[in-house]
């Protein structure tokens, strides 16, 4: 498969998953705000901090209010990670591989783009916003369903899944981080009903509430973190994402699990293995935010290695074997 084609399929999926998760971020914040004690002001700044684009936001908007933050995350074409920009990026990438993907996939990407574009052009009331966020999530799910059901599960499909899952792993870690940035009214509130409500809002944003209850029964901060990080069977949990991403990576390279042929496999394998042999106490002892931060940096390195290994091969020796250019 052409590197450019693989890269486009991978990025269509990263962008779409990113858009979906931005909708989740906004949802979690809306819910958290609703559940704050009376008299506390809404906090929007933490949401921007979670995305990692805080500097860009401050430079462009200054003060974080509900309006500026929503515009930045949903409709700002200058923010490369806004929902609108993600859909533009996904559509352009899909357009350039139209002959590779199924026409149903292309049509869904196109419809998804139009949904976002129209909402942005029209502007949204508070009521519309909730409906819009729900639409974004289901449009993303629909595209994945179509991809799964209409595209051969060959190399291209595995690049699609790889893009989806690496993006999701990163974003789930950020959803978890929202809780770190959101300030409780006082330190004493830890463990109070407010705190508990916030943890369950978090689970809701990751569509994880029901599955969490089945696993743990009641809300406890460490269990929530354990579920979103380490649960091997929940599809939005970080560990699940890494296990399946690694499967795809090995299918693409044709190498055995438990071994590696390239830097991408090596880095992803190590990261996944770490999650296999860690428990939530280990994570919490280090500090959950620090754990998440470190994880995101490592995951970025996996992304870089994938791009270098598959999307930008550079030169060959006379024998024809491929090497990475140093």
């Amino acid at each position, binding site marked *: *498969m*052409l*590197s*450019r084609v*693989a890269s486009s399929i991978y990025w269509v999926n990263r962008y779409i998953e990113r858009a979906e998760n931005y909708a989740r971020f906004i949802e979690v914040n809306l819910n958290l705000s609703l559940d704050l004690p009376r008299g506390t002001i809404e906090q929007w700044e933490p949401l921007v901090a979670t995305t990692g684009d805080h500097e860009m936001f401050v430079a462009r908007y200054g003060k974080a209010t509900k309006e500026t933050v929503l515009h930045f995350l949903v409709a700002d074409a200058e923010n490369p990670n806004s929902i609108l920009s993600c859909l533009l990026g996904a559509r*352009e990438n899909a*357009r*350039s591989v*139209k*002959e590779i993907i199924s*026409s149903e996939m292309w049509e869904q990407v196109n419809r998804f783009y139009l949904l976002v574009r129209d909402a942005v052009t029209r502007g949204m009331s508070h009521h519309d916003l909730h409906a819009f966020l729900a639409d974004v999530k289901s449009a993303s799910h629909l595209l994945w369903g179509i991809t799964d059901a209409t595209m051969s599960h060959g*190399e291209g499909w595995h*690049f699609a899944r790889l893009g989806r899952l690496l993006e999701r792993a990163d974003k789930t870690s950020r959803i978890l981080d929202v809780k770190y940035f959101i300030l409780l009214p006082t330190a004493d509130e830890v463990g109070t009903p407010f705190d508990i409500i916030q943890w369950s809002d978090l689970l809701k944003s990751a569509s994880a509430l029901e599955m969490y209850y089945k696993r743990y029964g009641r809300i406890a901060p460490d269990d929530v973190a354990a579920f979103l990080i380490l649960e091997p069977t929940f599809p939005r949990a970080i560990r699940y994402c890494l296990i399946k991403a690694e499967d795809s990576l090995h299918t*693409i390279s044709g190498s055995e699990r438990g071994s590696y042929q390239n830097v991408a496999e090596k880095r992803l394998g190590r990261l996944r293995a770490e999650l296999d042999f860690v428990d939530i106490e280990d994570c919490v002892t280090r500090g959950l935010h620090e754990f998440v931060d470190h994880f995101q940096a490592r995951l970025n390195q996996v992304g870089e290695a994938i791009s270098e290994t*598959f*999307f*930008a*091969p550079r*030169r*060959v020796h*006379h024998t*024809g*074997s*491929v090497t990475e250019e140093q």
Partner: protein
Amino acid sequence: MKFSTYDPGEFYDELFEGIGRPRRGSALLLRKFASLPDGELRKRQQAAERVILNMGMTFGVYGGDEGHEQIFPFDIVPRIVEAPDWTLIDTGLRQRLRALNLFIDDVYHEQKILKDNVIPSELIYSSKGFLKACWGLNPPRGIWCHIAGIDLVRISDGRYYVLEDNMRCPSGVAYVLEARQVMKRTFPELFEAYRVRPVDEYPSRLLETLRSLSDLPDPTIVILTPGSYNSAYYEHSLLAQKMGLELVEAGDLVVIDGSVHMRTTKGFQRVDVIYRRINDEYLDPLVFRPDSLLGIPGVMEAYKNGRVAIANAPGTGVADDKAIYAYVPKIINYYLAEEPILPNVPTYVCWERRDRDYTLEHLNQLVVKATNDAGGYGMMIGPQASQQEREDCARRIQADPRNYIAQPTLALSRSPTLVEDHIEGRHVDLRPYVLQGKGLYVLPGGMTRVALKKGSLVVNSSQGGGNKDTWVLS
């Protein structure tokens, strides 16, 4: 729908020989139309348009918004070419392409035709399509032009004339293939009644042609596109799908150790044949345009050394120059010692003093074309232009006479076209496609372009033209 009052007027009509009198091959079609209930044709037209929309048949327009796509306008009344007419076209095109190929090969080797003063050598050297880099090259089998699209027009005398030779990257064949699909859905009963020659084998013929460029048993062939913003991207993508070839952009290709490779997820894969849909000057920034982002550095060197084959061969554009077109009848005489079967349209080459003077004096009667532009860009239609436009055109001709030719405004033939719920005559041309590999193949059909605006003579899709299916009868 009744057609007893249909009036071909002063024009040659493709389906009617007189008022209400269909030609032999069209009678069945028109009887069928007449038997349809009122409004039915319109319904089928709308159904066809829906099919086209869903197929995503689009073209882009230069100068509009980047990546601006439009749905291709389509008319469901086919243009019919009867068997004897087609035989003439077929033999005429074969003759023309054989001669043009010998001409290109000669121009890059011995230049006998220049030494014998049949064509002024300055005209060749000043042609943008003439590439010094191709001097002395021997493309596989001595074939330069593998894919050609020759524009034909028919005028009041009922004869076909060659209007233009598209020898670089002729487009439109995707519309021929898709138009046929649409028509089969729209009028299945007519396809049962008529013996229309099929066009569907074009992709396999093209693949065969491309394979003939390599001696390998299973060469790796790619289609090189400028990318998804190109106006013909739809076609590039469709041909790639139908031939099962990789559709690559220049950035996907890289020259390593003298050979062309594509970047794949498994590393670099050697490429043996490139069907390029970009013009010569964008092929290789090392040789042509250092400012170009579109090219593949080193590809010309690989090509010269026989490490990769390119279709059409670089340098073929010299035969696409509209000033050189004027000499094609002489070229046919010279190389084949035959008279041209398909005549040229009378052409004034502004580079020649006498022709230029005539052109400047008769601008209000002539169509002026830039010698290196395609798609109707840079064209001035004298009788329809304003005084200002004609004066601008005169200035351009005087500033750069080599770049312009002029032709009389032709009374293009018309073909009945659906307008609301009845048919009216609209002007048409015809672009058949010719493949040259181990043998010559003329696709029995072609792109019939129709000027949908009443009275308009401009059939280019970028300028309000549409498309019809072309039925060659056997």
